[in-house]
């Protein structure tokens, strides 16, 4: 019974939130190497928990070749707008910085 309960909890999380949403989880590994998973108090900005539309607008602008960033425009040119949309939602859903 306990196992079934636990399992259904996992299923609900997977359905309603992006926390276990597949490939964004894997891609986030690379993001977190600089930005961290729980926030950043350095010159590299915190991304987790920020508004998804704000994140998406930033990422699309970098992907379009806005070179005001030092690195991000070189990364995001390699991702489709659909991927960026999913990624923005995922990062936003990670929760705010601690």
């Amino acid at each position, binding site marked *: 019974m306990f*196992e*079934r309960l*636990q*399992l*259904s909890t*996992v*299923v609900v999380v*997977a*359905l309603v939130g992006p926390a*276990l*949403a*597949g*490939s*964004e*989880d*894997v*891609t*986030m*590994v*690379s*993001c*977190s*190497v*600089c*930005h*961290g*998973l729980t926030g*950043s108090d*350095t*010159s*590299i900005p915190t991304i987790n928990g920020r508004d998804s539309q704000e994140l998406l607008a930033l990422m699309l602008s970098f992907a379009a070749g806005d*070179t005001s960033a*030092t*690195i991000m425009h*070189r*990364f995001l*040119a*390699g*991702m489709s707008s659909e*991927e960026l949309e999913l990624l923005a939602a995922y990062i936003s859903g990670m929760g705010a910085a601690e």
Partner: protein
Amino acid sequence: MSKISRREALALSSSLVTSPFLAASARASEGAHVVIVGGGFGGAAAARTLRRISPEIRVTLITDVKEFSTCPFSNLVIASERPLESITFGYDNIAASGVDVIVGRVIALDPIGKSLTLEDGQTLTYDRAILSPGVSLKYGDVPGYSEAASTAMPHAWKAGQQTLLLRDQLAAMRQGGTVLMSVPNNPYRCPPGPYERASLMAHYLKKNNPTAKIIIIDGKDTFSKQALFTEAWKSLYPGMITHVPFADNGGVLGVDPGAMTIATAFENFEGDVVNIIPPQRAPDFVLEAGLGGGGEWCSIDQFTFESVEAPGVHVIGDAAIVGDMPKSGFSASVQGGVCAHVVAALLSGQTPDRGVLLNTCYSFVSTNYGISVAGVYRINEEGRLKSVAGTGGTSPTGAPLSVREAEANHAQSWYKNLTSFLFG
């Protein structure tokens, strides 16, 4: 907690009942044992990620050092800009997160019996192993060089006492002296590392020994971020650094630690400080277990990191050929995290998810002058992890100093954030 892919979540949403497959797979990884070999960036990333995403999996980390000094930022130690302690990390926090940490040296791997043997005779069995064992230095490939000779001519290519030795030799060098560097041909750990080292040694010498010279004797003709390094050397350290490409030296024939000389095919060089960076390969126990397949690096499935020679053994970081990704601490960290996801999925009977992998190699040319090369990697139709065309690349040449300063700050931030995640 078991990982569920979007596809499975969708399938479940239509029935809203637990499928027998999922129930079975959720149990499959319960109590599974993953042994990670290597306490550097790759191993630590794999351990921390596995604890986070799959707490039901038992994780053992075997490290051959009680404290790990990072190669990234070690050139700042050589330039007397940071103490070694500031780039040295213990494993207490990794252990506190629920990882069994063993300090010991692996001497044998048995992929059939799924076991590892340590130098002290201890044997560990695993369901899946993740090896991130770094590199072994091929001292013998440089005639006259040896581990003993490295006390006179440090390699400093594994951070620690060797780093301090080179730092102290540089500080003690006579005014107007010459530093020689011997740099291998590709592939080796940290492609831009030797040139960052030359830069930061020049940064130190400019302040303390301004008539000194640095000569880089290279085993190749071109190198990583070359246009950016040479542009910066001209403006920051005019006349101090000379790069002698392979075409102009013909290769190192031998070194003499007594005379402090390097003989090349075309010329003999004499130095006051001599830094020999030998060629490298995967460590002995990995090659002895057959994971090199007759070569010196481990061939892997570039999606799952699983050895093509040894099922159940995943190899990441410098020891493996990971598609187009360079041998860097950043790459190893990314591979460690992604490999943890792969291993967690496989132990649950699921198909691992794919994602995009990134790398950035920052280099300091001085403490407030940073440059970078970045890469974006995806698995292609042939299963190879390829660099995505039109992405990545280096910082621009001719950029204003504000850009260099921003990159130096980001390099510091990257290091702080990553080491906090791995070892904090």
